[in-house]
């Protein structure tokens, strides 16, 4: 709601590619601003690399995307795809063949021209198994790579191995590399070592709005305007407006918040609800504005370990597993959780309770027909009693075999919110007579237990989707996938309903009619809510802030929440 209201108020960006003296510059009509000034941004973590091919961590990727550009881009405000380096494209009837026309006259940040060769080279690198790019998986459809061919200097053909519903979205965030610089390194087999933190900032060349000027380990990265950038505003002024961007490493969220409050940084991205409340106190006096963009693409959930047990597991573990496998037990747990209290106490109301395991930011894809889950202890008692559970004289819940129900919830020790949610759920379930332990674990050992050893009982976790579409979650819902949290990497679906989900998810992936896809994904959510492999909890709001006077500041609920339109950001005269 908040999100709609916020964006209802701003002028929609209309994109009209025109060709002019400076080649095919992209004109952002409706965008105006003034050139000059520096933006200081407090980044939580330091980047690990400047190399877009191997970057996997959020800090590196966020930085790299400021200096790189992609062919087709997802507009973070509209969540629709729009032309970027590809000024237009055509699709064959079967949806398998794309022809992309590239912008002419575009130059890299070192002045060298951009052509189809750079595109073909980039895809060659991303798809090369030896390079081990984390982007490679995104370019495989059911294990088969897409192929990219050069038609002429400004046209490339992209062939998909099988139809894919939202193929254009694959190109978002895929940085186009300068062939003239990286090809020799690639031939030597040293691409993974290129553009590391000890490289000279000027060596890193891209097509983004900025280029590297300086990197001080442990302190900051300074970006300067790319003089060859290919976007102009409606008045014909070349973007970006800002002369420099200073990304300072804060190390922790509290430091980020302190620096922002003190005016040392101009923008703050993704803070906790408590810090948001703390900052709100000084808002007017310090001259900054805070905004709640609404629930984003993060969703938190509780799940039970449903893995196959190794041979020789103790009878105690076997009994507990039998318990977790009962859908009636998982349903009772779900209905006993006070989601409203989680929203109110943990996120101070800046989150939304979920009734399906799809983040609320993915609004268009949430099955709105699913009933809202209202906490009801009588309903939970009833469900448990019907499944043969009983209460001991001391109030403890006994499973149908007469054993007291006791289990532990593991959660990441580093995340205060999730830890508090687990504590509240522990108290909720105590009222059903369940004896629940909360075990905070260091994130690495948590991941190890969930994905490798399967030595846990229940886990409270969050996922952040990379796109507002069902496809990024294929890796969660497919029973053969590695992120199928409750029972990863199944050879054949362990249950009939997981088989149904596999079939439906594959079907939606190749269905090109959007309504049809939505219908299929709605059915997936119904099956998920009947069986509750993930018990959905809530989606936290995206909370951001910026100094007054920053023009065109339009925070989005997708990643790069505040800097996604960095080329349009500018300082109003009074703020300089």
């Amino acid at each position, binding site marked *: 709601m908040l999100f709609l209201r916020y964006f209802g108020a701003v002028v929609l960006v209309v994109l009209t590619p025109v060709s002019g003296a400076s080649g095919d510059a992209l004109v952002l009509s409706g965008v105006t601003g003034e050139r000059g000034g520096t933006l200081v941004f407090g980044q939580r973590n330091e980047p690990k690399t400047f190399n877009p091919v191997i970057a996997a961590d959020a800090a590196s990727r966020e930085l790299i995307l400021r200096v790189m550009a992609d062919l087709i881009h997802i507009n973070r405000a509209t969540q629709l795809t729009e032309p970027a380096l590809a000024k237009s494209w055509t699709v064959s009837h079967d949806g398998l063949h794309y022809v992309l026309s590239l912008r002419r006259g575009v130059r890299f940040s070192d002045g060298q021209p951009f052509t189809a060769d750079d595109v073909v080279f980039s895809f060659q690198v991303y798809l090369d198994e030896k390079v081990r790019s984390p982007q490679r998986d995104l370019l495989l459809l059911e294990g088969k790579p897409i192929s990219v061919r050069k038609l002429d200097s400004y046209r490339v053909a992209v062939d998909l191995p099988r139809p894919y519903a939202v193929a254009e979205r694959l190109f978002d965030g895929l940085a186009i590399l300068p062939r003239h610089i990286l090809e020799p390194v690639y031939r030597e087999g040293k691409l993974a070592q290129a553009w590391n933190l000890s490289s000279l900032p000027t060596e890193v060349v891209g097509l983004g709005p900025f280029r590297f000027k300086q990197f001080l380990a442990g302190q900051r990265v300074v970006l300067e305007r790319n003089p060859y950038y290919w976007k102009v505003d409606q008045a014909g002024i070349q973007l970006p407006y800002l002369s420099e961007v200073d990304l300072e490493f804060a190390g922790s969220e509290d430091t980020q918040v302190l620096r922002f409050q003190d005016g040392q940084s101009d923008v703050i991205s993704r803070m906790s609800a408590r810090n948001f409340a703390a900052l709100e106190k000084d808002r007017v006096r310090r001259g900054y504005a805070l905004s709640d963009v609404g629930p984003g693409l993060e969703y938190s959930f509780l799940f039970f370990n449903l893995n196959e047990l190794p041979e020789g597991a103790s009878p105690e573990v076997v009994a507990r597993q039998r318990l977790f496998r009962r859908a009636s037990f998982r349903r009772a747990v779900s209905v006993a959780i006070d989601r409203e209290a989680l929203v109110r*106490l943990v996120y101070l109301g800046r989150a939304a309770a979920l009734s399906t395991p799809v983040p609320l930011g993915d609004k268009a894809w949430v099955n709105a027909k699913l009933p809202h889950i209202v906490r009801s202890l009588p309903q939970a008692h009833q469900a448990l009693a019907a499944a043969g559970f009983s209460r001991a004289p001391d109030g403890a819940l006994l499973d149908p075999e007469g054993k007291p129900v006791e289990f532990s919830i593991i959660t990441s020790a580093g995340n205060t919110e999730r830890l508090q949610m687990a504590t509240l759920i522990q108290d909720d379930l105590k009222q059903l007579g369940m004896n629940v332990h909360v075990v905070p674990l260091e994130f690495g050992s948590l991941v190890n237990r969930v994905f490798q050893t399967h030595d846990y009982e229940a886990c409270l976790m969050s996922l952040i989707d990379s796109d507002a579409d069902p496809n990024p979650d294929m890796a969660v819902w497919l029973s053969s996938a590695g992120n199928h949290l409750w029972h990863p990497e199944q050879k054949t679906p362990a249950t009939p309903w997981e088989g149904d989900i596999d079939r439906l998810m594959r079907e939606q992936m190749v269905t090109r009619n959007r309504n049809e896809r939505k219908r299929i994904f709605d059915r997936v959510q119904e099956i998920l809510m009947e069986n509750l492999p993930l018990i959905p909890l809530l989606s936290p709001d995206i909370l951001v802030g910026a100094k007054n006077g920053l023009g065109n500041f339009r925070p989005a609920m997708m990643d790069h929440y505040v800097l996604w339109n960095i080329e349009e950001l500018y300082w109003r005269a009074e703020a300089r």
Partner: protein
Amino acid sequence: MNRRWRIGLTSIFIALVVAPLLLAGFVAPYPYAEQHREYPYAPPAAVRFVKARPFVEVGGRWCEVRLLPGNGRLFGVAAPCVIFLSGTDGNGRDVFSRLLYGGRISLMTGLLSAFLSLALGLAAGVVAGYFGGWPDWLLMRGGELVMALPWLYLLLATRALLPLHISAVEAFVWPAAIIGAVGWVRPARLIRGVVLSGKERGFVLAARGFGAGHAYLIRRHLLPLTGSVVVTQATVLIPLYMLAEMSLSFLGLGVEEPMPSWGNMLTEASHYHALILHRWLLAPGVAAIPVLLGFLLLADILLDGRHD
């Protein structure tokens, strides 16, 4: 003031600050895990006396505080009123009650681990000092190794290997056991020194000359010599280990939710928002001062006496 008086007064002071912690089940108005979800981050209640009868304010309403309200607690207010003398945390749990229960856990951990490390230290120190030779070498070099290990990092690493199911008692005992087991070296060295000098003293040599056995010599002559060292060490180690427990729980390695300890309560207070908006969460830090001060004062007086 003479020393006896100073020891007496300090002991009374310690007893006064420690008594409410030990009697937490009676003095605290609420159980430590009770959540009042309608009152997250409630500030400390305002107390007012009307005709010598205390009232607290809750949401604009004044409720009378009753002594011995009949629920086995020292004081309380009739429902639906609530009393949060030191405010509540993010889950709506009474900070004052958690402070008392948490203090009891921190204090008991301090006492238990001090006892453990003194017992281990005494055994190791006496064996090393009395027998000398290879047992001495083994214990002292082993002790140096223990001192040299980066325990905090080892604890962080080993925590992941512990079983997930830990009962409330185990959750309390294991940090105490670890602190105690790591801390034996220092008392052991001191006691070794006392035993080393003691075994050369005339009456010990004489007893040995009369044919006294090892067990008799140690029990009758050497252990009494170590008495004052043990008592002084105890007063130094108890506050030290209380702090150690607080640090472990602060880092999430000690007592776990929903059980409070001063350390894990301070974790919540360490966030920026707490310093700005919810300062009452810092109560455990303030409460620790008189308790630690009491023990350290006593240690100081006892050490003074030794120099006299």
